[in-house]
């Protein structure tokens, strides 16, 4: 049925009808066609040439795309039909906490009383926003066991770097120069990358055979030049660092600080708080734990909460309740300065507060309990076909391994992941963490029902049967998707990053 992409296009590109590629906006474009409508302003339409010197004006017209509103709608609606999403089905992507995001929070985000406020409006004219910030900060501190927080970081990685700069400011304030930050080998890539940008060197701590930080090796790596350690607990394998108290003591003993990577916070809400474990700095991924939909890659928010000794260094300005009971912007005395152009991803912050308010302390505790219950149920349900890398009680996610399938049938974790797409489920996280061979990391989250988990398990059983009966078909999977396996090597070999790149 295929033919050259047509300007105007056809729904054949939507999977409901077939599997053709959708033309790009530019292929659909026709000179002089337009969709925009602007209000009548009555402002004198003085020619630009009379307002701006010609040496600033662009001699050429920058081509955008020229499509009708109808074609614009058809194009993006068809593209949306070529996209999997949480709203379509289970998305058990480990470490990403792809829970269902309440539509109620969307309604909050779309409220003009919030999202039509200019960020430069004085505090007196944006009291509602400042109160949201102050309230959220207080609740995030209650959840993490910290005493204050900055809401500016736009994502987890931004939070990490902010945290490392706080670490640096703290040590420098003590006239104390330190060189290294410790990171377990199971850590997420943003951790080491942030360490470098924070001006520190990475020392990698190996995991032990239980998938946890090797305490002895950790102690061996410690010294007066260690600024701190970055950990996530539960760690990226989904296991709780049971020796956390010893780890904290050891790091603190050499004057180092503990940084908590909050990507896995969903596992411990109401059960244990980073502050109580001895952490000094905590970032949270609001887009994971507190239900901001991931938007195909963002936006998120990565607030950073700290223990008392770090509060004075927090980025500024911070929204605070002042004496007269109103809210105002205050910059901490020894602030490291702004880490965002304005106040952070404000609307994401408002969503998170709404989510926290609906759940309350009791609901958040249930969130963690059910998330952990689901992960363990799935781990146990799958034990015979996809064993866990470390077979014991896990937290909110379980890291399974396809190494057996690889050995027996030459089926790799990637093949299982792709075949799962045909079964109507998104793939788990594959090949992460790096310490597990053929890792398949499943994070069901608390919003999936046991019936859906059972359905996932059945799908995996069918895939394992295929591994025995017809391994070839798995290497070819997926076939029922809008496109089959894509040629990643070719994409990297000849970069075509725009429609204008020479082909």
């Amino acid at each position, binding site marked *: 049925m295929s033919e050259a992409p047509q300007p105007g296009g056809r729904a054949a590109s939507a999977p409901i009808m077939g599997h053709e590629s959708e033309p790009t906006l530019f292929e659909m474009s026709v000179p002089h066609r337009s969709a925009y409508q602007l209000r009548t302003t009555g402002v*004198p339409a003085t020619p630009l040439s009379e307002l701006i010197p010609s040496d600033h004006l662009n001699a050429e017209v920058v081509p955008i795309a020229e499509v009708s509103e109808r074609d*614009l709608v058809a194009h993006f*609606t068809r593209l949306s039909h070529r996209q999997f999403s949480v709203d379509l089905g289970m998305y058990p992507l480990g470490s990403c906490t792809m829970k269902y995001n309440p539509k109620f929070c969307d309604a909050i985000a779309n409220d003009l009383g919030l999202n039509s406020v200019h960020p430069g409006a004085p505090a007196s004219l944006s009291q509602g926003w400042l109160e949201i910030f102050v309230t959220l900060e207080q609740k995030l501190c209650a959840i993490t066991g910290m005493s204050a927080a900055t809401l500016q970081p736009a994502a987890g990685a931004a939070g990490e770097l902010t945290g490392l700069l706080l670490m640096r400011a703290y040590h420098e304030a003590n006239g104390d120069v330190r060189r290294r930050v410790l990171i377990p080998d199971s850590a997420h890539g943003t951790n080491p990358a942030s360490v470098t940008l924070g001006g520190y060197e990475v020392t990698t701590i190996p995991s032990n055979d239980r998938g946890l930080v090797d305490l002895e090796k950790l102690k061996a790596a410690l010294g007066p030049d260690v600024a701190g350690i970055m950990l996530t607990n539960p760690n990226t394998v989904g296991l709780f660092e049971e020796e956390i108290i010893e780890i904290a003591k050891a790091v603190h003993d050499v004057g180092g600080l503990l940084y908590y990577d909050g990507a896995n916070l969903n596992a411990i809400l109401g059960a244990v708080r980073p502050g109580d474990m001895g952490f000094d700095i905590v970032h949270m991924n609001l887009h994971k734990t507190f239900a901001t939909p991931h938007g195909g890659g963002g936006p998120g928010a990565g607030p950073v909460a700290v223990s008392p000794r770090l509060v004075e260094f927090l980025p500024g300005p911070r929204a605070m309740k002042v004496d007269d009971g109103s809210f105002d912007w205050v910059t901490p005395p020894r602030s490291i300065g702004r880490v965002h152009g304005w106040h952070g991803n404000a609307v994401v912050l408002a969503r998170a507060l709404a989510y926290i308010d609906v759940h309350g302390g009791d609901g958040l505790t249930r969130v963690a309990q059910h998330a952990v219950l689901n992960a363990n149920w799935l781990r146990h349900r799958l034990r015979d076909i996809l064993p866990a890398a470390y077979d014991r009680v896990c937290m909110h996610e379980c890291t399974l391994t396809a190494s057996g399938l690889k050995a027996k049938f030459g089926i790799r974790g990637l093949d299982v992941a792709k075949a799962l797409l045909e079964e109507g489920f998104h793939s788990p996280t594959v090949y992460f963490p790096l310490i597990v061979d053929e890792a398949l990391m499943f994070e069901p989250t608390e919003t999936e029902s046991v019936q859906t988990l059972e359905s996932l398990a059945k799908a995996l059983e069918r895939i394992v049967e295929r591994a025995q009966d017809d391994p070839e078909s798995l290497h070819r999977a997926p076939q029922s998707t809008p496109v089959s396996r894509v040629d990643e090597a070719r994409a990297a070999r000849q*970069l075509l990053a725009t429609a204008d790149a020479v082909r």
Partner: protein
Amino acid sequence: MADYLPHTDEDVASMLEFLGMTSLDDLFAHIPASVRLAQGLDIDDGLSEPDVAAIFAGYTAANKAKTTAMTCFAGGGAYDHEVPPVVKALASRSEFVTAYTPYQPEVAQGVLQAIFEYQTLISRLSGLPIPNASLYDAATALVEALNMAHGATGRSKMVISSGIHPHWREVARTFAKGTGHEIVEVPLRNGVTDWSSVDATDAAAIVAAYPNYLGVLEDLSEAKALATTNDALFIVGADPVAAGVLKTAGQWGADVFVGEGQAFGTPLSFGGPYLGLFACTEAQVRRLPGRIVGETVDSSGRKAFVTTLRAREQDIRREKATSNVCTNQTLMAVTAAIQLGWLGTKGLREVATRCAQGAHYLFDEVLRINGVEAVSNQPFFREFAIRLPRSADVVISAMAENHVLAGLSAGAMCDGDDPSIESGVDRVLLVSVTERRTKDELDEYVRALREALQA
């Protein structure tokens, strides 16, 4: 008790039984008791959605500056542009909103193609061939550009015009504490960067703004020359709406373009989530921060899109990565592609032109008020700075009574003195006009300003 959990008590009981457990607590038994939270979270119990909505109604009521209640003349990288229902409807399709990063391209062609279209548009608007898939915001995009310059030159001196938005400069200073970069801020004279006042030898980057945050359109040739002679990277922070009619960063010779993409379909949102725009030359592609989508084919030869050049990124390169960015602002990038598709070639020019027309009309009118003077006599685009006979903060509060958000106070933005303003920073007001402002609104602005100055 309100939540979104599917499990019934029966579900929980049977699932625990399957695990050979008797209570949910058993799942946490391996956590050292000494750190377990004994008495639960110190947060009130959950409320139903309508109850929480009522609480939020209180917040929105307290936001006097919402555009539904005040006419917005504030800018500084955040603009009150038209966002039509069609763009909102498409950008809120749940497939775009509730998808994760496109790690499995076979089921993510929707987001991948939308990003590819976004990249194409940013490349055209910047005049540079290599865009990325978005960064957090303009300020952090500038930081990534500085890091790229360091990588490209091995040097650490960053020469930045103080025409760059004060917040962006502050963010650059913050992150420089980690990278050890030396940030040199070049003063403005009469609203124009005084490049002659700095020593740019060993500079890794020369950073100019177009227009600068006072609205002034500077001739960037001098900055470009400075970059060339010191073989530093030339970084231009530009208003992407200006690119609808003005020279692009690429045309000014930029190696890197950074900018704020909020103007393309994202509401004011009290400052975020916004959209960090980034594009560079072919020469820098291996140092590109963040994700980039490339076109390729699938196993049966059909056109397909995929994130590519992954070897630069943190998950693979770890401590040697070009950047630590992971989650970015994809949804805003998709929104920008939709908004630009709606505007089209003609619409973007029209919006840019109307912004300029409105700003120049208002500029001429306010200068008629005595005591009000221009901070610069240089050409400007959509935004201008005026010096008032009294405190800008006071005038903003006074005009708010007339439901006019008068603009941004330079004093508040810079908090205190700044090399961008020679004197009386606290009396400097930055005024911005978009295509949404009617002549009546502009005239009302003038009336309200007069009143505020008399009072």
